[in-house]
Protein backbone atom coordinates (compact mmCIF):
# COMPACT_ATOMS: atom_id res chain seq x y z
CA UNK A 1 0.00 0.00 0.00
CA UNK A 2 2.79 2.38 0.96
CA UNK A 3 4.35 1.76 -2.43
CA UNK A 4 1.27 2.85 -4.31
CA UNK A 5 0.54 5.91 -2.18
CA UNK A 6 3.98 7.50 -2.33
CA UNK A 7 4.89 9.84 -5.14
CA UNK A 8 7.55 8.25 -7.40
CA UNK A 9 11.00 9.69 -6.69
CA UNK A 10 12.63 12.08 -9.08
CA UNK A 11 9.35 13.49 -10.47
CA UNK A 12 8.47 17.15 -10.64
CA UNK A 13 4.77 17.72 -11.29
CA UNK A 14 3.78 15.96 -14.48
CA UNK A 15 7.28 15.84 -15.90
CA UNK A 16 8.94 12.68 -17.27
CA UNK A 17 10.93 10.44 -14.93
CA UNK A 18 14.64 11.22 -14.74
CA UNK A 19 15.42 8.18 -16.85
CA UNK A 20 13.07 9.49 -19.56
CA UNK A 21 10.87 6.40 -20.09
CA UNK A 22 7.24 5.57 -19.37
CA UNK A 23 6.45 5.08 -15.70
CA UNK A 24 3.69 2.48 -15.36
CA UNK A 25 3.21 3.31 -11.69
CA UNK A 26 1.54 6.54 -12.74
CA UNK A 27 -1.28 4.74 -14.54
CA UNK A 28 -2.04 2.64 -11.46
CA UNK A 29 -2.89 5.64 -9.33
CA UNK A 30 -3.03 5.46 -5.55
CA UNK A 31 -5.80 2.90 -5.09
CA UNK A 32 -8.42 3.61 -2.45
CA UNK A 33 -7.01 7.06 -1.76
CA UNK A 34 -7.71 8.13 -5.34
CA UNK A 35 -11.17 6.59 -5.28
CA UNK A 36 -12.01 8.43 -2.07
CA UNK A 37 -10.57 11.66 -3.46
CA UNK A 38 -12.71 11.38 -6.61
CA UNK A 39 -15.82 10.53 -4.61
CA UNK A 40 -15.29 13.38 -2.16
CA UNK A 41 -14.66 15.93 -4.91
CA UNK A 42 -17.67 14.77 -6.91
CA UNK A 43 -19.88 14.88 -3.82
CA UNK A 44 -18.67 18.39 -3.06
CA UNK A 45 -19.37 19.56 -6.61
CA UNK A 46 -22.77 17.88 -6.44
CA UNK A 47 -23.57 19.64 -3.19
CA UNK A 48 -22.48 23.02 -4.56
CA UNK A 49 -24.65 22.51 -7.63
CA UNK A 50 -27.62 21.48 -5.53
CA UNK A 51 -27.36 24.15 -2.89
CA UNK A 52 -25.57 27.31 -4.00
CA UNK A 53 -28.09 28.55 -6.57
CA UNK A 54 -30.04 30.47 -3.94
CA UNK A 55 -30.13 31.65 -0.34
CA UNK A 56 -30.57 29.10 2.48
CA UNK A 57 -34.22 30.02 3.15
CA UNK A 58 -35.37 29.40 -0.42
CA UNK A 59 -33.25 26.27 -0.56
CA UNK A 60 -34.95 24.99 2.58
CA UNK A 61 -38.40 25.70 1.12
CA UNK A 62 -37.41 24.01 -2.12
CA UNK A 63 -36.10 20.95 -0.29
CA UNK A 64 -39.20 20.36 1.80
CA UNK A 65 -42.01 21.64 -0.45
CA UNK A 66 -42.08 18.59 -2.68
CA UNK A 67 -42.15 15.82 -0.05
CA UNK A 68 -44.45 17.74 2.28
CA UNK A 69 -46.88 18.42 -0.59
CA UNK A 70 -46.77 14.74 -1.53
CA UNK A 71 -47.71 13.80 2.03
CA UNK A 72 -50.45 16.43 2.17
CA UNK A 73 -52.06 15.15 -1.03
CA UNK A 74 -52.43 11.73 0.55
CA UNK A 75 -53.52 13.05 3.94
CA UNK A 76 -56.28 15.11 2.31
CA UNK A 77 -57.38 12.08 0.26
CA UNK A 78 -57.48 10.09 3.49
CA UNK A 79 -59.43 12.78 5.33
CA UNK A 80 -62.02 13.17 2.57
CA UNK A 81 -62.86 9.48 2.58
CA UNK A 82 -62.36 8.35 6.16
CA UNK A 83 -62.61 11.67 7.97
CA UNK A 84 -59.16 11.11 9.47
CA UNK A 85 -60.58 8.40 11.70
CA UNK A 86 -57.64 6.03 11.32
CA UNK A 87 -54.38 7.49 12.78
CA UNK A 88 -52.58 4.20 12.03
CA UNK A 89 -53.16 4.57 8.32
CA UNK A 90 -52.17 8.23 8.50
CA UNK A 91 -48.83 7.21 10.04
CA UNK A 92 -48.53 4.57 7.32
CA UNK A 93 -48.99 7.18 4.60
CA UNK A 94 -46.78 9.89 6.13
CA UNK A 95 -43.85 7.57 6.87
CA UNK A 96 -44.14 6.08 3.39
CA UNK A 97 -44.18 9.50 1.72
CA UNK A 98 -41.23 10.72 3.79
CA UNK A 99 -39.22 7.68 2.72
CA UNK A 100 -40.26 8.14 -0.86
CA UNK A 101 -38.69 11.60 -0.89
CA UNK A 102 -35.37 9.86 -0.26
CA UNK A 103 -36.05 7.37 -3.05
CA UNK A 104 -36.96 10.04 -5.61
CA UNK A 105 -33.94 12.18 -4.74
CA UNK A 106 -31.65 9.17 -4.72
CA UNK A 107 -32.72 7.75 -8.07
CA UNK A 108 -32.72 11.12 -9.82
CA UNK A 109 -29.25 12.18 -8.63
CA UNK A 110 -27.18 9.97 -10.89
CA UNK A 111 -29.42 10.31 -13.93
CA UNK A 112 -29.48 14.09 -13.65
CA UNK A 113 -25.70 14.17 -13.27
CA UNK A 114 -25.41 12.51 -16.65
CA UNK A 115 -27.98 14.78 -18.26
CA UNK A 116 -26.50 17.88 -16.64
CA UNK A 117 -23.01 17.09 -17.80
CA UNK A 118 -23.97 15.93 -21.28
CA UNK A 119 -26.77 18.30 -22.26
CA UNK A 120 -26.12 21.47 -20.27
CA UNK A 121 -22.48 21.77 -19.36
CA UNK A 122 -21.22 19.47 -22.13
CA UNK A 123 -18.60 18.08 -19.81
CA UNK A 124 -19.53 14.41 -19.80
CA UNK A 125 -16.87 13.36 -22.28
CA UNK A 126 -14.19 15.18 -20.28
CA UNK A 127 -15.41 13.67 -17.02
CA UNK A 128 -15.43 10.28 -18.70
CA UNK A 129 -11.84 10.46 -19.96
CA UNK A 130 -10.38 11.84 -16.73
CA UNK A 131 -8.40 9.32 -14.64
CA UNK A 132 -11.13 9.03 -11.97
CA UNK A 133 -13.49 6.09 -12.20
CA UNK A 134 -16.64 7.29 -13.99
CA UNK A 135 -18.93 5.35 -11.66
CA UNK A 136 -17.27 6.79 -8.57
CA UNK A 137 -17.73 10.33 -9.90
CA UNK A 138 -21.39 9.63 -10.66
CA UNK A 139 -21.97 8.15 -7.22
CA UNK A 140 -20.37 11.17 -5.61
CA UNK A 141 -22.62 13.52 -7.55
CA UNK A 142 -25.66 11.43 -6.69
CA UNK A 143 -24.92 11.36 -2.97
CA UNK A 144 -25.38 15.12 -2.71
CA UNK A 145 -28.89 14.88 -4.05
CA UNK A 146 -29.60 11.90 -1.84
CA UNK A 147 -28.60 14.03 1.16
CA UNK A 148 -31.04 16.77 0.12
CA UNK A 149 -33.78 14.13 -0.28
CA UNK A 150 -32.99 12.63 3.11
CA UNK A 151 -33.28 16.05 4.74
CA UNK A 152 -36.64 16.52 3.00
CA UNK A 153 -37.76 13.11 4.25
CA UNK A 154 -36.81 13.88 7.86
CA UNK A 155 -38.64 17.21 7.73
CA UNK A 156 -41.73 15.56 6.22
CA UNK A 157 -41.69 13.10 9.09
CA UNK A 158 -41.32 15.97 11.58
CA UNK A 159 -44.27 17.79 9.97
CA UNK A 160 -46.22 14.53 10.17
CA UNK A 161 -45.53 14.16 13.88
CA UNK A 162 -46.00 17.81 14.82
CA UNK A 163 -48.89 18.83 12.55
CA UNK A 164 -50.57 15.73 11.17
CA UNK A 165 -50.87 13.62 14.30
CA UNK A 166 -48.50 10.79 13.42
CA UNK A 167 -48.01 8.79 16.65
CA UNK A 168 -44.20 8.51 16.78
CA UNK A 169 -42.94 7.36 20.18
CA UNK A 170 -39.12 7.77 20.51
CA UNK A 171 -39.03 5.06 23.19
CA UNK A 172 -40.62 2.53 20.83
CA UNK A 173 -38.12 3.03 17.99
CA UNK A 174 -35.92 0.01 17.27
CA UNK A 175 -32.50 1.57 16.50
CA UNK A 176 -30.78 -1.68 15.51
CA UNK A 177 -33.38 -2.61 12.91
CA UNK A 178 -33.61 0.99 11.72
CA UNK A 179 -29.85 1.27 11.15
CA UNK A 180 -29.63 -2.04 9.36
CA UNK A 181 -32.55 -1.46 7.00
CA UNK A 182 -31.43 2.11 6.31
CA UNK A 183 -27.97 0.94 5.21
CA UNK A 184 -29.35 -1.84 3.04
CA UNK A 185 -32.15 0.33 1.70
CA UNK A 186 -29.89 3.22 0.72
CA UNK A 187 -27.61 0.77 -1.09
CA UNK A 188 -30.64 -0.54 -3.01
CA UNK A 189 -31.71 3.01 -3.90
CA UNK A 190 -28.25 3.74 -5.27
CA UNK A 191 -28.42 0.52 -7.32
CA UNK A 192 -31.74 1.59 -8.86
CA UNK A 193 -30.20 5.00 -9.51
CA UNK A 194 -27.32 3.35 -11.39
CA UNK A 195 -29.89 1.50 -13.49
CA UNK A 196 -31.71 4.70 -14.44
CA UNK A 197 -28.39 6.42 -15.12
CA UNK A 198 -27.59 3.59 -17.54
CA UNK A 199 -30.87 4.27 -19.34
CA UNK A 200 -30.26 8.03 -19.45
CA UNK A 201 -26.88 7.43 -21.09
CA UNK A 202 -28.84 6.12 -24.06
CA UNK A 203 -31.72 8.59 -24.18
CA UNK A 204 -32.28 12.25 -24.91
CA UNK A 205 -32.59 15.57 -23.16
CA UNK A 206 -36.20 15.04 -22.14
CA UNK A 207 -35.10 12.17 -19.92
CA UNK A 208 -35.15 14.64 -17.01
CA UNK A 209 -38.58 13.33 -16.10
CA UNK A 210 -37.62 9.64 -16.30
CA UNK A 211 -36.48 9.25 -12.67
CA UNK A 212 -39.79 10.68 -11.51
CA UNK A 213 -41.65 8.39 -13.91
CA UNK A 214 -39.78 5.33 -12.66
CA UNK A 215 -40.33 6.48 -9.08
CA UNK A 216 -44.05 6.85 -9.78
CA UNK A 217 -44.22 3.33 -11.16
CA UNK A 218 -42.29 1.87 -8.22
CA UNK A 219 -44.62 3.72 -5.87
CA UNK A 220 -47.41 1.49 -7.14
CA UNK A 221 -45.74 -1.81 -6.24
CA UNK A 222 -43.74 -0.90 -3.13
CA UNK A 223 -46.49 -0.63 -0.53
CA UNK A 224 -45.60 2.97 0.21
CA UNK A 225 -49.03 4.57 0.39
CA UNK A 226 -51.34 1.55 0.52
CA UNK A 227 -50.92 -2.11 1.50
CA UNK A 228 -49.89 -4.47 -1.30
CA UNK A 229 -52.93 -6.65 -0.57
CA UNK A 230 -55.07 -4.16 -2.53
CA UNK A 231 -53.16 -4.97 -5.72
CA UNK A 232 -53.78 -7.88 -8.11
CA UNK A 233 -51.59 -10.92 -7.31
CA UNK A 234 -49.05 -10.47 -10.16
CA UNK A 235 -48.38 -6.90 -9.04
CA UNK A 236 -48.01 -8.08 -5.43
CA UNK A 237 -45.42 -10.59 -6.65
CA UNK A 238 -43.49 -7.80 -8.41
CA UNK A 239 -43.69 -5.78 -5.21
CA UNK A 240 -42.20 -8.63 -3.20
CA UNK A 241 -39.09 -8.77 -5.40
CA UNK A 242 -38.57 -5.01 -5.14
CA UNK A 243 -36.09 -4.07 -2.39
CA UNK A 244 -37.89 -0.78 -1.75
CA UNK A 245 -40.95 -2.71 -0.52
CA UNK A 246 -38.88 -4.40 2.18
CA UNK A 247 -37.04 -1.21 3.02
CA UNK A 248 -40.23 0.78 3.57
CA UNK A 249 -41.74 -2.10 5.59
CA UNK A 250 -38.56 -2.37 7.70
CA UNK A 251 -38.33 1.35 8.43
CA UNK A 252 -42.04 1.52 9.29
CA UNK A 253 -41.65 -1.46 11.62
CA UNK A 254 -38.64 0.18 13.30
CA UNK A 255 -40.11 3.68 13.58
CA UNK A 256 -43.81 3.16 14.29
CA UNK A 257 -44.17 -0.46 15.43
CA UNK A 258 -47.99 -0.42 15.55
CA UNK A 259 -48.66 0.55 11.91
CA UNK A 260 -50.33 -1.95 9.57
CA UNK A 261 -48.03 -4.10 7.43
CA UNK A 262 -47.75 -3.09 3.78
CA UNK A 263 -46.70 -6.60 2.77
CA UNK A 264 -48.99 -8.86 4.73
CA UNK A 265 -52.61 -8.59 5.73
CA UNK A 266 -55.68 -10.71 5.09
CA UNK A 267 -55.86 -11.95 1.51
CA UNK A 268 -52.36 -10.80 0.58
CA UNK A 269 -49.99 -12.91 -1.49
CA UNK A 270 -47.62 -12.99 1.47
CA UNK A 271 -50.29 -14.32 3.84
CA UNK A 272 -51.56 -16.97 1.44
CA UNK A 273 -48.10 -18.31 0.56
CA UNK A 274 -46.45 -18.18 3.99
CA UNK A 275 -49.39 -18.58 6.31
CA UNK A 276 -48.27 -15.65 8.49
CA UNK A 277 -50.12 -12.35 8.54
CA UNK A 278 -46.97 -10.22 8.26
CA UNK A 279 -43.22 -10.82 7.88
CA UNK A 280 -41.10 -10.56 11.03
CA UNK A 281 -38.03 -8.34 11.36
CA UNK A 282 -35.36 -10.97 10.43
CA UNK A 283 -37.37 -11.93 7.34
CA UNK A 284 -37.56 -8.29 6.30
CA UNK A 285 -33.78 -7.85 6.65
CA UNK A 286 -32.98 -11.06 4.75
CA UNK A 287 -35.45 -10.23 1.97
CA UNK A 288 -34.07 -6.69 1.70
CA UNK A 289 -30.54 -8.04 1.51
CA UNK A 290 -31.45 -10.63 -1.16
CA UNK A 291 -33.53 -8.32 -3.38
CA UNK A 292 -31.01 -5.49 -2.93
CA UNK A 293 -28.15 -7.77 -4.00
CA UNK A 294 -30.14 -8.87 -7.04
CA UNK A 295 -30.85 -5.30 -8.11
CA UNK A 296 -27.24 -4.25 -7.49
CA UNK A 297 -25.89 -7.07 -9.65
CA UNK A 298 -28.37 -6.33 -12.42
CA UNK A 299 -27.74 -2.58 -12.29
CA UNK A 300 -23.96 -3.01 -12.43
CA UNK A 301 -24.21 -5.30 -15.45
CA UNK A 302 -26.66 -3.07 -17.28
CA UNK A 303 -24.57 0.03 -16.56
CA UNK A 304 -21.49 -1.65 -18.06
CA UNK A 305 -23.44 -2.58 -21.17
CA UNK A 306 -24.86 0.92 -21.48
CA UNK A 307 -21.46 2.52 -20.95
CA UNK A 308 -19.93 0.36 -23.68
CA UNK A 309 -22.74 1.12 -26.10
CA UNK A 310 -22.55 4.85 -25.36
CA UNK A 311 -18.80 4.78 -26.01
CA UNK A 312 -19.22 2.85 -29.26
CA UNK A 313 -21.96 5.11 -30.61
CA UNK A 314 -20.54 8.41 -29.48
CA UNK A 315 -23.43 9.10 -27.12
CA UNK A 316 -21.21 10.60 -24.42
CA UNK A 317 -20.86 13.91 -26.23
CA UNK A 318 -24.12 13.93 -28.16
CA UNK A 319 -26.59 16.64 -27.22
CA UNK A 320 -30.25 16.46 -28.14
CA UNK A 321 -33.32 18.65 -28.02
CA UNK A 322 -36.90 19.02 -29.14
Amino acid at each position, binding site marked *: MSESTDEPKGLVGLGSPDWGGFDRARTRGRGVRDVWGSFRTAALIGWQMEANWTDPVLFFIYSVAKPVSGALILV*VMLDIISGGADPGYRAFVVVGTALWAVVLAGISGLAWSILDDRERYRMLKYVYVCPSDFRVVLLGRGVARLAVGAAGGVITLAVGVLALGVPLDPAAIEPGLLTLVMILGLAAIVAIAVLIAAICLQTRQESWSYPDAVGGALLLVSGVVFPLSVLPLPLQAIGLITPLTWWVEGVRRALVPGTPSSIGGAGSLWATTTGSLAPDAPTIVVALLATGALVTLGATGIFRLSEGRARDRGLLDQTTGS
Partner: protein
Amino acid sequence: MSVYEFRRTVSPQAAAAWTPRQVLLTNLRAVGGRAYPRVHGLFREKSWVFFEVLLPFLSTSTFVFVYRALRAPPEYIGFVVLGGAMTAFWLNVIWMMASQLWWEKSQGNLELYFAAPMSIMSVLFGMALGGMVMSSTRAVIVLAVASLLYEVRFAIDQWLLLLTVFFLTLAALYGLGMMLASLFLVWGREAFQMSQLFTEPVYFVSGLNFPVARLGLLGALALATIPLAVGLDAMRQLAFIGANFPIGTPTPEVEALILVVMTVVFLAAARWMLRTLERRARREGRLSVRWQ
Protein backbone atom coordinates in the same frame (compact mmCIF):
# COMPACT_ATOMS: atom_id res chain seq x y z
CA MET B 1 -43.93 33.78 -56.21
CA SER B 2 -42.26 33.06 -52.88
CA VAL B 3 -42.19 35.91 -50.39
CA TYR B 4 -38.60 35.00 -49.67
CA GLU B 5 -37.42 35.60 -53.22
CA PHE B 6 -34.59 38.11 -53.68
CA ARG B 7 -35.70 41.62 -54.61
CA ARG B 8 -33.45 44.52 -55.33
CA THR B 9 -33.83 47.43 -52.89
CA VAL B 10 -32.31 50.86 -52.61
CA SER B 11 -31.00 50.40 -49.06
CA PRO B 12 -30.69 47.82 -46.25
CA GLN B 13 -33.49 49.65 -44.43
CA ALA B 14 -35.78 49.17 -47.41
CA ALA B 15 -34.85 45.48 -47.53
CA ALA B 16 -35.75 45.14 -43.87
CA ALA B 17 -39.17 46.71 -44.42
CA TRP B 18 -41.25 43.60 -44.96
CA THR B 19 -44.78 43.50 -46.23
CA PRO B 20 -47.45 42.27 -43.77
CA ARG B 21 -47.73 39.12 -45.88
CA GLN B 22 -44.02 38.39 -45.49
CA VAL B 23 -44.18 38.97 -41.75
CA LEU B 24 -47.21 36.72 -41.38
CA LEU B 25 -45.80 33.90 -43.47
CA THR B 26 -42.44 34.03 -41.72
CA ASN B 27 -44.11 33.83 -38.34
CA LEU B 28 -46.33 30.97 -39.49
CA ARG B 29 -43.25 29.13 -40.73
CA ALA B 30 -41.62 29.72 -37.35
CA VAL B 31 -44.69 28.25 -35.61
CA GLY B 32 -44.63 25.19 -37.86
CA GLY B 33 -40.87 24.83 -37.62
CA ARG B 34 -40.87 24.91 -33.83
CA ALA B 35 -43.82 22.54 -33.52
CA TYR B 36 -42.30 20.06 -35.98
CA PRO B 37 -39.60 18.45 -33.77
CA ARG B 38 -42.08 17.87 -30.98
CA VAL B 39 -44.66 16.20 -33.19
CA HIS B 40 -42.11 14.30 -35.23
CA GLY B 41 -40.18 13.31 -32.10
CA LEU B 42 -43.18 11.21 -31.04
CA PHE B 43 -42.41 8.72 -33.79
CA ARG B 44 -38.64 8.83 -33.53
CA GLU B 45 -38.12 8.10 -29.86
CA LYS B 46 -39.66 4.72 -29.14
CA SER B 47 -38.69 4.76 -25.46
CA TRP B 48 -41.15 7.64 -25.14
CA VAL B 49 -44.07 5.20 -25.04
CA PHE B 50 -42.61 3.41 -22.04
CA PHE B 51 -41.34 6.38 -20.04
CA GLU B 52 -43.97 8.97 -20.82
CA VAL B 53 -47.09 6.87 -21.23
CA LEU B 54 -46.78 3.58 -19.35
CA LEU B 55 -44.91 4.81 -16.28
CA PRO B 56 -47.12 7.88 -15.68
CA PHE B 57 -50.11 5.55 -16.11
CA LEU B 58 -48.74 3.39 -13.30
CA SER B 59 -48.20 6.51 -11.22
CA THR B 60 -51.86 7.45 -11.73
CA SER B 61 -52.82 3.89 -10.82
CA THR B 62 -51.15 4.33 -7.42
CA PHE B 63 -53.70 6.94 -6.42
CA VAL B 64 -56.51 4.78 -7.78
CA PHE B 65 -55.39 2.03 -5.42
CA VAL B 66 -55.14 4.47 -2.52
CA TYR B 67 -58.84 5.23 -2.99
CA ARG B 68 -59.57 1.53 -3.40
CA ALA B 69 -57.74 0.81 -0.15
CA LEU B 70 -59.92 3.45 1.51
CA ARG B 71 -63.06 2.03 -0.16
CA ALA B 72 -63.86 5.42 -1.66
CA PRO B 73 -66.94 6.01 -3.85
CA PRO B 74 -66.24 5.08 -7.51
CA GLU B 75 -66.35 8.68 -8.79
CA TYR B 76 -63.15 9.39 -6.84
CA ILE B 77 -61.35 6.87 -9.04
CA GLY B 78 -62.58 8.94 -11.97
CA PHE B 79 -61.20 12.12 -10.38
CA VAL B 80 -57.78 10.52 -10.12
CA VAL B 81 -57.86 9.29 -13.72
CA LEU B 82 -58.87 12.71 -15.00
CA GLY B 83 -56.18 14.36 -12.88
CA GLY B 84 -53.59 11.85 -14.09
CA ALA B 85 -54.42 12.64 -17.71
CA MET B 86 -54.14 16.39 -17.10
CA THR B 87 -50.69 16.07 -15.47
CA ALA B 88 -49.32 15.35 -18.94
CA PHE B 89 -50.14 18.93 -19.94
CA TRP B 90 -48.87 20.48 -16.73
CA LEU B 91 -45.53 18.64 -16.94
CA ASN B 92 -45.23 19.64 -20.58
CA VAL B 93 -45.92 23.28 -19.74
CA ILE B 94 -43.32 23.32 -16.98
CA TRP B 95 -40.56 21.26 -18.54
CA MET B 96 -41.00 22.00 -22.23
CA MET B 97 -42.50 25.48 -22.28
CA ALA B 98 -41.39 27.39 -19.21
CA SER B 99 -37.91 25.92 -19.13
CA GLN B 100 -37.39 25.83 -22.89
CA LEU B 101 -35.88 29.26 -23.53
CA TRP B 102 -33.61 28.68 -20.57
CA TRP B 103 -32.54 25.37 -22.14
CA GLU B 104 -31.96 27.10 -25.42
CA LYS B 105 -29.81 29.65 -23.64
CA SER B 106 -27.78 26.86 -22.04
CA GLN B 107 -27.34 25.20 -25.41
CA GLY B 108 -26.35 28.36 -27.22
CA ASN B 109 -29.42 28.55 -29.48
CA LEU B 110 -31.12 31.50 -27.86
CA GLU B 111 -29.12 34.21 -29.59
CA LEU B 112 -30.05 32.58 -32.91
CA TYR B 113 -33.74 32.83 -32.02
CA PHE B 114 -33.40 36.50 -31.24
CA ALA B 115 -31.35 37.17 -34.35
CA ALA B 116 -33.85 35.38 -36.63
CA PRO B 117 -36.39 37.66 -38.37
CA MET B 118 -39.56 36.47 -36.62
CA SER B 119 -41.40 37.17 -33.39
CA ILE B 120 -40.22 35.12 -30.44
CA MET B 121 -43.94 34.70 -29.62
CA SER B 122 -44.17 32.57 -32.79
CA VAL B 123 -41.46 30.32 -31.42
CA LEU B 124 -43.31 29.98 -28.12
CA PHE B 125 -46.59 29.37 -29.92
CA GLY B 126 -44.96 26.66 -32.04
CA MET B 127 -43.56 25.01 -28.94
CA ALA B 128 -46.99 25.15 -27.34
CA LEU B 129 -48.70 23.57 -30.38
CA GLY B 130 -46.14 20.78 -30.61
CA GLY B 131 -46.31 20.24 -26.87
CA MET B 132 -50.10 20.03 -26.94
CA VAL B 133 -50.01 17.31 -29.60
CA MET B 134 -47.31 15.45 -27.69
CA SER B 135 -49.10 15.64 -24.34
CA SER B 136 -52.55 14.96 -25.81
CA THR B 137 -51.33 11.58 -26.99
CA ARG B 138 -50.20 10.67 -23.50
CA ALA B 139 -53.30 12.13 -21.86
CA VAL B 140 -55.68 10.29 -24.19
CA ILE B 141 -53.91 6.96 -23.65
CA VAL B 142 -53.87 7.36 -19.85
CA LEU B 143 -57.51 8.42 -19.85
CA ALA B 144 -58.68 5.63 -22.15
CA VAL B 145 -56.70 2.77 -20.62
CA ALA B 146 -57.32 3.81 -17.01
CA SER B 147 -61.05 4.35 -17.67
CA LEU B 148 -61.36 0.86 -19.15
CA LEU B 149 -59.17 -0.85 -16.58
CA TYR B 150 -60.66 0.82 -13.52
CA GLU B 151 -64.20 0.96 -14.90
CA VAL B 152 -64.63 4.69 -14.61
CA ARG B 153 -68.22 5.72 -15.33
CA PHE B 154 -68.49 9.21 -16.77
CA ALA B 155 -71.84 10.98 -16.55
CA ILE B 156 -71.80 13.86 -19.01
CA ASP B 157 -74.72 16.10 -19.92
CA GLN B 158 -72.96 19.04 -21.55
CA TRP B 159 -70.41 17.70 -24.01
CA LEU B 160 -69.91 21.02 -25.72
CA LEU B 161 -69.20 22.86 -22.49
CA LEU B 162 -66.85 20.07 -21.39
CA LEU B 163 -64.86 20.31 -24.62
CA THR B 164 -64.84 24.11 -24.41
CA VAL B 165 -63.52 23.96 -20.86
CA PHE B 166 -60.86 21.46 -21.90
CA PHE B 167 -59.57 23.61 -24.74
CA LEU B 168 -59.76 26.75 -22.61
CA THR B 169 -57.72 24.96 -19.96
CA LEU B 170 -55.08 24.12 -22.55
CA ALA B 171 -55.05 27.72 -23.81
CA ALA B 172 -54.65 29.11 -20.30
CA LEU B 173 -52.05 26.50 -19.35
CA TYR B 174 -49.89 27.16 -22.39
CA GLY B 175 -50.41 30.91 -21.97
CA LEU B 176 -49.01 30.50 -18.47
CA GLY B 177 -46.17 28.44 -19.94
CA MET B 178 -45.33 31.24 -22.37
CA MET B 179 -45.33 33.75 -19.53
CA LEU B 180 -43.10 31.55 -17.38
CA ALA B 181 -40.77 30.99 -20.35
CA SER B 182 -39.97 34.69 -20.44
CA LEU B 183 -39.48 34.72 -16.68
CA PHE B 184 -37.17 31.72 -16.78
CA LEU B 185 -35.16 33.56 -19.40
CA VAL B 186 -33.62 35.86 -16.83
CA TRP B 187 -33.10 33.13 -14.29
CA GLY B 188 -29.96 31.10 -13.96
CA ARG B 189 -29.72 27.67 -12.40
CA GLU B 190 -32.69 28.42 -10.19
CA ALA B 191 -34.92 27.88 -13.24
CA PHE B 192 -34.36 24.15 -13.05
CA GLN B 193 -35.07 24.03 -9.33
CA MET B 194 -38.22 26.09 -9.85
CA SER B 195 -39.45 23.57 -12.40
CA GLN B 196 -39.11 20.99 -9.66
CA LEU B 197 -40.96 23.19 -7.24
CA PHE B 198 -43.88 23.56 -9.65
CA THR B 199 -44.86 19.87 -9.58
CA GLU B 200 -46.07 18.31 -6.29
CA PRO B 201 -46.95 21.61 -4.56
CA VAL B 202 -49.05 22.61 -7.59
CA TYR B 203 -50.65 19.16 -7.71
CA PHE B 204 -51.61 19.60 -4.07
CA VAL B 205 -53.14 23.07 -4.29
CA SER B 206 -54.82 22.23 -7.62
CA GLY B 207 -56.61 19.25 -6.11
CA LEU B 208 -55.20 16.84 -8.66
CA ASN B 209 -56.54 13.76 -6.86
CA PHE B 210 -59.35 15.24 -4.81
CA PRO B 211 -61.95 18.01 -5.12
CA VAL B 212 -60.17 21.34 -4.69
CA ALA B 213 -63.09 22.72 -2.64
CA ARG B 214 -61.76 20.63 0.24
CA LEU B 215 -58.79 23.02 0.57
CA GLY B 216 -60.96 26.03 1.47
CA LEU B 217 -59.15 29.35 1.09
CA LEU B 218 -56.05 27.72 -0.40
CA GLY B 219 -58.27 26.07 -3.01
CA ALA B 220 -59.95 29.37 -3.81
CA LEU B 221 -56.54 30.97 -4.28
CA ALA B 222 -55.55 28.14 -6.62
CA LEU B 223 -58.77 28.61 -8.61
CA ALA B 224 -57.90 32.26 -9.08
CA THR B 225 -54.34 31.69 -10.27
CA ILE B 226 -53.67 28.18 -11.57
CA PRO B 227 -55.42 27.06 -14.78
CA LEU B 228 -54.96 23.39 -13.86
CA ALA B 229 -57.05 23.86 -10.70
CA VAL B 230 -59.89 25.69 -12.49
CA GLY B 231 -59.93 23.39 -15.50
CA LEU B 232 -59.89 20.21 -13.44
CA ASP B 233 -62.64 21.39 -11.13
CA ALA B 234 -64.86 22.42 -14.05
CA MET B 235 -64.21 19.16 -15.92
CA ARG B 236 -64.98 17.10 -12.81
CA GLN B 237 -68.27 18.90 -12.33
CA LEU B 238 -69.14 18.29 -15.99
CA ALA B 239 -67.86 14.72 -16.34
CA PHE B 240 -69.37 13.35 -13.12
CA ILE B 241 -72.83 14.88 -12.96
CA GLY B 242 -74.62 13.96 -9.75
CA ALA B 243 -71.49 12.68 -8.01
CA ASN B 244 -71.38 13.23 -4.30
CA PHE B 245 -68.26 15.27 -3.54
CA PRO B 246 -67.44 18.54 -1.77
CA ILE B 247 -68.63 21.43 -3.89
CA GLY B 248 -68.26 25.07 -3.03
CA THR B 249 -66.45 26.13 -6.13
CA PRO B 250 -68.00 28.23 -8.95
CA THR B 251 -70.17 26.59 -11.63
CA PRO B 252 -68.46 25.26 -14.80
CA GLU B 253 -69.76 28.25 -16.78
CA VAL B 254 -68.11 30.69 -14.37
CA GLU B 255 -64.94 28.63 -14.34
CA ALA B 256 -64.90 28.71 -18.15
CA LEU B 257 -65.01 32.51 -17.93
CA ILE B 258 -62.15 32.45 -15.42
CA LEU B 259 -60.16 30.39 -17.92
CA VAL B 260 -60.88 32.92 -20.70
CA VAL B 261 -59.65 35.74 -18.48
CA MET B 262 -56.57 33.72 -17.52
CA THR B 263 -55.77 33.02 -21.17
CA VAL B 264 -55.98 36.68 -22.13
CA VAL B 265 -54.00 37.84 -19.09
CA PHE B 266 -51.29 35.21 -19.45
CA LEU B 267 -50.81 35.83 -23.17
CA ALA B 268 -50.68 39.60 -22.73
CA ALA B 269 -48.32 39.22 -19.77
CA ALA B 270 -46.15 36.82 -21.77
CA ARG B 271 -45.87 39.32 -24.61
CA TRP B 272 -45.06 42.20 -22.29
CA MET B 273 -42.64 40.22 -20.15
CA LEU B 274 -40.88 38.79 -23.15
CA ARG B 275 -40.24 42.26 -24.56
CA THR B 276 -39.22 43.72 -21.21
CA LEU B 277 -37.02 40.86 -20.17
CA GLU B 278 -35.47 40.56 -23.60
CA ARG B 279 -34.55 44.25 -23.45
CA ARG B 280 -33.15 43.80 -19.97
CA ALA B 281 -31.30 40.63 -20.89
CA ARG B 282 -29.79 42.37 -23.95
CA ARG B 283 -28.72 45.33 -21.83
CA GLU B 284 -27.16 43.12 -19.18
CA GLY B 285 -25.68 40.77 -21.76
CA ARG B 286 -27.47 37.74 -20.34
CA LEU B 287 -28.92 36.27 -23.52
CA SER B 288 -25.76 34.34 -24.22
CA VAL B 289 -24.65 33.73 -20.63
CA ARG B 290 -24.62 29.99 -20.11
CA TRP B 291 -24.27 27.63 -17.22
CA GLN B 292 -24.51 30.21 -14.48
